[in-house]
């Protein structure tokens, strides 16, 4: 992987009437990387993908493909290919004919077409299925035909629009690994759209988290997970406890804030947040430790606890009524706790993060499952 940008999204805004589907998206996708656009439905990720493919045109801004402005270029003149949500295989054509479709459009010599189709069917492990019709294949096989049909054209980038959504869980997990393998094998840039955070974390080199048309954060899965840039990202990727806080001291790269119960917390400073500003303190359930008989950390009451095999999931409540979820591993020496018991919640110095407070997320926590 190099840092060369294959797809540049330059201040792109897309409006449908008064509705802003994509709001000033500005980022680049590098050659050979597995790039995911992640967000809830309606966040603008599919619209962004369709603009890269050429099915939609940006209302503002430009899209560059290998340096060239393609904002007004129709899809059939762009060297990108799409794997559609429901595959959109041509039902009247055989698997081979489906895969050959793009090459025939481009008037590639017949002998080359046959060779490349065979090669690509081998890559997706469907070498013996060329003569079948799509209806005679399973969902996973259809998925791989859709991949082969796109990849056989050696596109500058492959665009995947929730391609695993129609598969059952087991097959989806297999296909995730399969997709990674194929991507490594062909070395083509993959742009993957999904609403499934686990899928994005598993496969991506980098992820763009989108919400309500805006790109909230772009980073590696680790960065997104451990250093979320906003409350939305923290809540959307994995579980997060979000506690209201007020900024205290900012000292270079570190800052301290105070929780409603008076506990001082310390974390990396946030640009633009100074003493007295409202903030949100975020901490992942698995970064917390529970202790009894100390005065350290936040004190809370056990509301419920569930044994989940590798961990115990605690549902807790602070004195101010903020719900908190903590995951505790089996190695921690905890006395037997029951609902109603009081515990102290602690964490490592770099376990939590301070975030800018989002007005609409004024509620103290957001814990999606």
């Amino acid at each position: 992987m190099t840092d060369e940008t294959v797809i540049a999204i330059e201040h792109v805004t897309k409006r449908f009437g008064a509705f802003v589907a994509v709001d000033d998206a500005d980022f680049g996708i590098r050659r050979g990387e597995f790039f995911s656009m992640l967000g809830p439905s309606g966040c603008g990720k599919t619209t962004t993908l369709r603009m890269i493919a050429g099915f939609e045109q940006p209302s503002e801004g430009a899209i560059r493909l290998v340096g060239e402005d393609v904002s007004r270029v129709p899809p059939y003149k762009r060297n990108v290919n799409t794997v559609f949500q429901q595959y959109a295989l041509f039902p009247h054509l055989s698997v081979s004919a489906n895969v050959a479709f793009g090459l025939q459009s481009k008037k590639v010599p017949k002998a080359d077409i046959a060779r490349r189709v065979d090669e690509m069917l081998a890559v997706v492990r469907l070498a013996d299925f060329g003569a079948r019709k799509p209806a005679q294949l399973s969902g996973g096989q259809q998925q791989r035909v859709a991949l082969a049909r796109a990849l056989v054209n050696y596109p500058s980038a492959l665009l995947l629009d929730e391609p695993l959504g129609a598969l059952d869980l087991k097959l989806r997990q297999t296909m995730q690994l399969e997709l990674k393998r194929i991507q490594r094998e062909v070395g083509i840039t993959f742009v993957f759209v999904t609403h499934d955070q686990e899928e994005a974390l598993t496969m991506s080199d980098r992820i763009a988290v989108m919400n309500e048309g805006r790109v909230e954060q772009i980073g590696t899965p680790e960065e997104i997970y451990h250093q979320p840039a906003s409350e939305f990202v923290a809540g959307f990727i994995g579980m997060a406890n979000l506690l209201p806080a007020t900024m205290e001291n900012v000292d270079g790269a570190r800052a301290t804030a105070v929780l409603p119960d008076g506990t001082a917390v310390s974390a990396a400073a946030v640009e633009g947040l100074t003493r007295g500003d409202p903030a949100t303190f975020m901490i992942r359930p698995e970064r917390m430790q529970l202790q009894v008989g100390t005065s350290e950390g936040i004190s809370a009451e056990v509301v419920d606890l569930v044994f989940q095999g590798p961990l115990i999931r605690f549902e807790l409540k602070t004195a101010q009524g903020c719900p908190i979820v903590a995951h505790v591993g089996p190695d921690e020496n905890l006395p037997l706790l029951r609902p109603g018991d009081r515990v102290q919640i602690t964490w490592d110095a770099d376990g939590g993060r301070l975030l800018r407070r989002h007005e609409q997320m004024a509620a103290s926590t957001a814990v999606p499952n």
Partner: protein
Amino acid sequence: MIERDDQGRKRATIAPWLLQGPGIVFLIVFFFFPLYTLGRMALSARASRFSDPVFSWHWDNFSSAFSKYGDQFTRSFLYAAAATLLALVIAYPLAYVIAFRGGRFKNVLLGLVVVPFFTNFLIRTLAWKTILGDQGTVVSVLRGVGILGSSGTLLRTPLAVIGGLTYNFLPFMVLPVYVALEKIDPRLVDAARDLYSDTWRAFRKVVFPLSLPGVFAGSLLVFIPAAGDFVNAYYLGNTNNSMIGNVVQNQFLVQVDYPVAAALSFVFMAIVMVIVIAYARVLGTEDLV
């Protein structure tokens, strides 16, 4: 438990018969039996012009059907083929626009296609007689711009007959083609465009092949009744371009020569069947999803 299971199984074996029963009875009473009497009639002979036909393996009716009415047969199938082609040319773009661009007006537009046909078939055909009449506006305009000669006519020409057939059977083309096009997933067109096809190639390689079942059904629904029609040729044509329907009508109702009329009907059926099978082969309809 076991008993009930057995009963259930028995019911499962009778159910298909019960469901098919009415259809089978209908076919026997209203198709096979009439076909049988028609066949007997076609092989009957009349001793004189006024006596009743008597079954006598009289194959002459068939040979005279060919020898005397060959022209009318050829004309019928040529006119019907022309009308089918014209109907397809008119109906396809219409159905295409309704299916892909109709939006929420789809049903209204489809209704508009069908509404004129609430008027009686005969009245509509007679209306064309007036429209195409020698004194009518259409003819005088066409004469004025020189498309028709100063004494040129439209009525009583093959063109008028084919036009009438096309008009009268058009909805039978529009509806099946529309249904076939409507079923096509628009994402398939996106996929074709994504795979370097311009709109025209996407149409040729994806939309049109997938609409073939509709084209096939529509063609049959237009071609078969058009080939057997006598109303259009009767009102819009002249005696020199009458169709096989006119001959059958004349033999049955005017000459009262039932055996010849029956033989003509049989020959007509046989030819239609051959054409339909050949057509299905050409379109490869069996292969289509």
